[in-house]
């Protein structure tokens, strides 16, 4: 076996996995902890990519900085979307099917908006380091993968600390388990969910920046990620932040190895394979609590 090929596949897989964690993180909170099936999450990520593209092209902003600057705006959008979702569906208990249709529709609206404004061509961002790579022995590590990997780790770590160390974070962990009990702790469940949803959407801004650094983006590219994201969340254990990171690394590594040795067209089967095996063997996922 060619050692260089193998080591490069491993390195690329780890970097890809870190990026997947950033992509799945927001839905890990929204779906894993709030039980809201926000199928439009990848569309929000692509929206992040296009806005980063605009800031990068218009002002020459570094994509990561642009992604971070967009986070507060995405948070506000998330709060607004949750309010609409709550008033229209959750309050009346119709969230399961009507809510799913709502997010499906939202996904189409976002996609069409970007098709209207930017067309269906692929777009990409520019930064000095994109296109360069570090050579470590036999392994080449491209900056366009390394920067997203590091940004994803920092964001995942920050969310993990927020969830486990703050009162608000712990209330988010509790809200879907017993909302009446949470009221008796002095927290308003609707406000808690609103903030959590906002945080989930805010992560899509930075994930979008990372997506467009890794490769060119077109308006419907988010659809490639829907299955992968759900597979990561289920494999990691619903709502577990460390679980999301570990599952993302596992799926990234596996996809990279499959791509290298079997062929790129087989890569999408990896996530679904893991999803099926997880549901059959360990439905609570790697880090699932119950």
């Amino acid at each position, binding site marked *: 076996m060619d050692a260089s090929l193998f080591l490069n596949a491993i390195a690329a897989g780890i970097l890809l996995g870190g990026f997947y964690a950033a992509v799945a993180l927001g839905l890990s909170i929204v779906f894993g902890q709030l039980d809201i099936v926000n199928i439009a999450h990848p569309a929000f990520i692509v929206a992040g990519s296009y806005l980063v593209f605009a800031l990068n092209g218009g002002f020459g902003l570094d994509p990561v900085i642009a992604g971070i600057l967009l986070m507060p705006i995405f948070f506000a959008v998330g709060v607004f979307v949750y309010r609409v979702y709550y008033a229209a569906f959750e309050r009346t208990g119709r969230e399961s099917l009507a809510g799913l249709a709502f997010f499906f529709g939202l996904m189409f609206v976002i996609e069409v908006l970007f098709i209207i404004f930017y067309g269906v061509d692929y777009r990409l961002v520019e930064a000095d380091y994109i296109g360069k790579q570090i050579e470590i022995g036999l392994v080449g590590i491209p900056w366009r993968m390394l920067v997203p990997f590091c940004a994803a780790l920092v964001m995942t770590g920050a969310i993990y600390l927020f969830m486990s160390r703050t*009162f608000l974070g*712990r209330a988010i*962990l509790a809200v879907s388990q017993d909302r*009446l*009990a*949470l009221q008796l*702790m*002095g*927290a308003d469940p609707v406000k808690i969910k609103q903030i959590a949803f906002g945080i989930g959407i805010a992560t899509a801004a930075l994930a979008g920046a990372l997506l467009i650094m890794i490769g060119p983006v077109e308006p419907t590219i988010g659809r490639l990620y829907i299955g992968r994201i759900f597979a990561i969340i289920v494999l990691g254990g619903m709502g577990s932040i460390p679980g999301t990171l570990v599952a993302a690394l596992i799926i990234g590594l596996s996809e990279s190895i499959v791509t290298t040795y079997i062929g790129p067209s087989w890569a999408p089967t990896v996530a679904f394979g893991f999803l099926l095996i997880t549901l059959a063997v360990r439905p609570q996922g790697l880090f699932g609590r119950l």
Partner: protein
Amino acid sequence: MANSLSISNVEAGYGSVRVLHDVTINVGGGETVVLLGSNGNGKSTLIKCITGLVEPDSGEIIFETDGEKINLIGKSPEDIVDLGIAMVPEGRRLFPALTVEENLTLGAYRPAARAKLDENLEFVYGAFPRLLERRNQLAGSMSGGEQQMVAIARSMMSDPKILLVDEPSVGLAPILVSQTIAKIKELQEQRNLTILMAEQNFNQAIKIADRGYIIVHGQIEFEGADAAALENNEMIKQYYLGA
């Protein structure tokens, strides 16, 4: 330290079903008052009216703390908890997929309690050493008696002035019921709490009661000025003791 509750002429129900009729009870500072009645007579509904989970149709619920009188009707449960009124709900209502310590920490959510988090955590672990041993265990995987300890400890984490306890005996073995009731009394003495406890287990409840009320079909049928008055009441003999 006067933290008292006066509930006057409260009427409440769910939709067209009337549950409470003209209920008037008082809970004085530092008192342990029991609300006795069998299932379906309105005990839980009254407790829920105090915590804002059910809004009464009419009447007054006044919480008096340090000379200030606050009407609780119309306030959200969050605001009522913020004032220092904690509730141990029927059936415990723990967060099953969180650890014991995470459950306890959530008890200290209200701003006034956050600053005292470490101090109160030490206090409840002192009161319930078993919980210290099991602090990292998921609450949902514990026995009923342990879960009741977590529920009581969690309510103490909010540093309450008034503690409302709804049916602490439900689902517990008799030996655990008397331990739980004794523990509530111990906490009352240590923290000089004002307690209103709804309970159907008459014999256990009057062990710690200073005073009590009997509620039948949503009406207060008897007010006992002390435990002896409750024990010797004809209605209690009729309803509870089968005489």
